[in-house]
Structure formats: C-alpha cells, structure tokens
C-alpha cells in the first residue's frame, strides 16, 4: 500500500480529513466536553517532549496516522535536533519520546538519544520492530541497550493474520524475530531494559481491556514464539489519515464516530496526554500532540509556534486545540501514547 500523499488521495489533505469528520454530524469536541461537564483542556506541567523526527518509514501500515512510508522525505535537520536538546537543557522535562515514521531511520535519531540520555532523561523509541532487522540498522539494538532506551513497539495482534492485515504481509514474523533480538540483548527480561508492546484494533472498533489482552499476549507470545515483553499498551485508532481512508472506503466513518461519541468517558477526557505533552514536528513546529501535528493544527496562536520561538520567548502552558478526532482519545477506557487512561 502506498502513502495517501503518493497517490494524491484527497484524504492526504488535513483539511479534507477534518471536513470528512465534520460531515458525519459528530458534535465539536469542546461541545462534547461542555455537555458532559468537563473543563476545556488546559496543559499541566510538561512531562513528555514528543519529537517526530520525520515521515520516512520502511512500512506503510493501513492505520498509520502519519501517512508515513518509504516515499516520504520529511526529515528533521541537525539544527532543529539541536534546538530540541537546547529545550531539554533549559527545561526539566523528564521524558524525551522519539517517534516518526520509523524514527531510527532519521540521521538525527542517535544524536537525540545520546543527548537525552546525557541529560539524564528517560528516552523512548517508538519502534515498529521490523526496522531493527534492516541491514542498514546493524548495531541499532546494542546502541539502544547501551543507552538504556525504553522501547515502545507496535504489535496489533499476537496472531500473524491480524498483524499482517494491518501492517503488511510477513510483518508479524519479522516483528517476532526483532523481539527475539531485543530479548537476547536483555530487553523485556526484567533487567531494566524495557520493551512495551502496543495493541491497536484491526478494524473499526475499540480495543479490549488492556490487562486482559496483556495476559493473552504474554501467554501466546511466550508459549508459541518464545518471546517476552514488559507491558502491553492499548491504543485506539484515530479517525484520521490512513485509518480514516479505511473507514471511508468501508463506509464505517459514521459508525465509528458514533461509537467514539457513545463511549465518551469524562474521566479519560480529564487525563488526555496533550495536557502533559508537547509535540515537536520534523520542522520544529509545535503541536499539542502527534495527531494534531498530522492534522496541521498548530498550538494555540497565543503562544510560541516553533521551537525557536519557544526558546526565545518561553511559554509552555497553553489551551489545547481540539477537533472531532479528539473523541478517539476519550472513548472507552481512553487512549494515549501510554495506553489506556484508566
């Protein structure tokens, strides 16, 4: 499957994505918050700096909210990466979360990891697993282990069919092989090197209970494939980009938005990740989260819009920009980059 951009699909446009969601008749997110007695989303202290280093990826998964793929060329420059480090130097944000695309394919990946760890921060690599097997990435697993990088890796199903349907033929087998390499390097084995797996639904429905799914994953992956991991995180599919294209193609958009609305959870709304995250784009622009970044919804215009402006003027607290896609974070048990919210 090619990226939406490469086939000039109308849904490659963020404006068209937001228009498509509006056409479902779903109410505006802020109106939902108000009707359920939840205050508008304001940020708290920033705990995670999530840096998207670019859209290049060795896969083109069917649910990708980034529309990433081998054809994408957007990539962070060294100058911007240095600004990320400068921000971390000046602000005690405890976690640097590096994402993409496949972030490891960025020339700035190792620089950011080394700098983040030197500053004593927790560094997360949002890894698609298969990237670890690429010949060009030789030495990556020892590098990650040496710098004690936490790995958060996608594996939508403990069965080949589900994973391959969503992420491409043969991806399950490769993911298991990569997980085995990580286990061999000490990851997931209780020695302080952490690999968490991410489950997200293979279709237009919400994820099941995180703890119960974790038990299934743990047993199936251990007994059938001999691999282990730390925690399972469940993340709902956001109705944007390639997952939205799937919803549209299968006439599921209205149903899915109804489901998100029907299962709106006020407790999850109060804990959405944008309240404690700051998201940085490959070009240094600032967003409330990676989803807003892909929808090109920049941070509230009152504050700094780029890393450079933030470094010059300061100002980390802000009102969060929301739209209908936000219902994906507040449905059921809630969803964030750290898994279910309750």
């Amino acid at each position, binding site marked *: 499957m090619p990226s939406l951009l490469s086939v000039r699909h109308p849904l490659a446009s963020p404006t068209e994505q937001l228009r498509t969601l509006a056409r479902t008749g779903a109410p505006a997110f802020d109106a939902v918050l108000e009707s359920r007695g939840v205050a508008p989303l304001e940020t708290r202290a920033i705990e995670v700096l999530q840096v998207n280093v670019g859209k290049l990826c060795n896969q083109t998964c069917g649910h990708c909210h980034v529309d990433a793929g081998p054809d994408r060329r957007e990539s962070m420059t060294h100058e911007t990466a240095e600004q990320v480090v400068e921000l971390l130097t000046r602000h005690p944000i405890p976690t640097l979360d590096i994402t993409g695309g496949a972030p490891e394919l960025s020339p700035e990946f190792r620089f950011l990891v080394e700098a983040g760890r030197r500053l004593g921060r927790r560094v997360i690599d949002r890894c698609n697993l298969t990237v670890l097997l690429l010949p060009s990435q030789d030495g990556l697993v020892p590098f990650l282990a040496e710098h004690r990088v936490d790995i958060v890796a996608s594996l939508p*199903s*403990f*069965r080949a*069919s*589900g994973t391959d349907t969503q992420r491409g033929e043969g991806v399950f087998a490769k993911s298991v092989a990569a997980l085995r390499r990580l286990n061999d390097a000490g990851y997931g084995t209780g020695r302080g090197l952490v690999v968490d797996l991410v*489950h997200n*639904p*293979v*279709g237009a*429905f*919400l*994820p*099941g*209970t995180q*703890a*119960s*799914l974790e*038990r*299934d*994953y743990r047993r199936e992956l251990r007994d059938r494939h001999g691999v282990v991991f730390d925690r399972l995180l469940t993340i709902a599919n956001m109705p944007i980009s390639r997952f939205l294209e799937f919803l549209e193609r299968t006439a599921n958009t209205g149903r899915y938005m109804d489901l998100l609305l029907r299962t709106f959870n006020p407790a999850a709304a109060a804990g959405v990740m944008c309240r404690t995250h700051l998201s940085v784009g490959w070009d240094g622009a600032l967003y409330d989260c990676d989803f807003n970044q892909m929808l090109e919804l920049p941070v509230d215009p009152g504050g700094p819009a780029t890393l450079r402006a933030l470094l010059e003027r300061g100002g980390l607290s802000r009102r969060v920009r929301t739209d209908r896609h936000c219902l994906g974070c507040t449905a059921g048990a809630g969803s964030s980059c750290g898994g279910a919210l309750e």
Partner: protein
Amino acid sequence: MDTYYCPHDLSKFAEMGKNRPELWAKYMEYYSAVFADGALTEREKALIALGVAHSVQCPYCIDAYTNACLEKGADLDQMTEAVHVANAIRGGSSLVHGVQMRNIAEKVGM
C-alpha cells in the same frame, strides 16, 4: 413491526430493566462478573459466548459477540474455530441421541 428480529433492538436490551429493575440489576451484576477477566481471559470468554450464540442461534448475541471477540483481540481464524466447536457439539448431541433411538428400536423391534 414487520419482523420479529430487528438489529436496532440489540441497543434496547436495557429496556428489560423496566418494570422489574431489581431483577435486571441482579442479572447484570452476574453477567458482568461472568465476563470479567478471571481464570479465562476476556477474549477466551468472548469466544465461548460466540460459540454458544451460534448454538442458540441468537442474532443479537452473534452481533454482540462478533464485535466483542474482535475488540478483545480474537481473529477470524479463532472465531471460525469457535463456531465449528459449537457446530460439532450441536451435531454430536443430535447424533448421540441416536443411541436412544437404537435402544428403543432394539427393545421393540423383532
């Protein structure tokens, strides 16, 4: 109403809580406890429910537990196997009653 079964009726299930809410509350409490993660995971219980739904041929339960199985991480291979298990037991239970037929026939036949 022009048909006994209507997909929209599934979402009206809770209307059975009217009139005798205390019975509904007891049933729902039991129901939630049965399907909670326990010695079996939620996925395993949903697969059993899917098999039973086919055995009792309840379209509401088939709809509900097809969705539940998918949400809880089951795939079509597993769900198809669950339906085959229901089918095998259903067919087998007819067949095993053939022994009763044979017993009676043997008793009264010449």
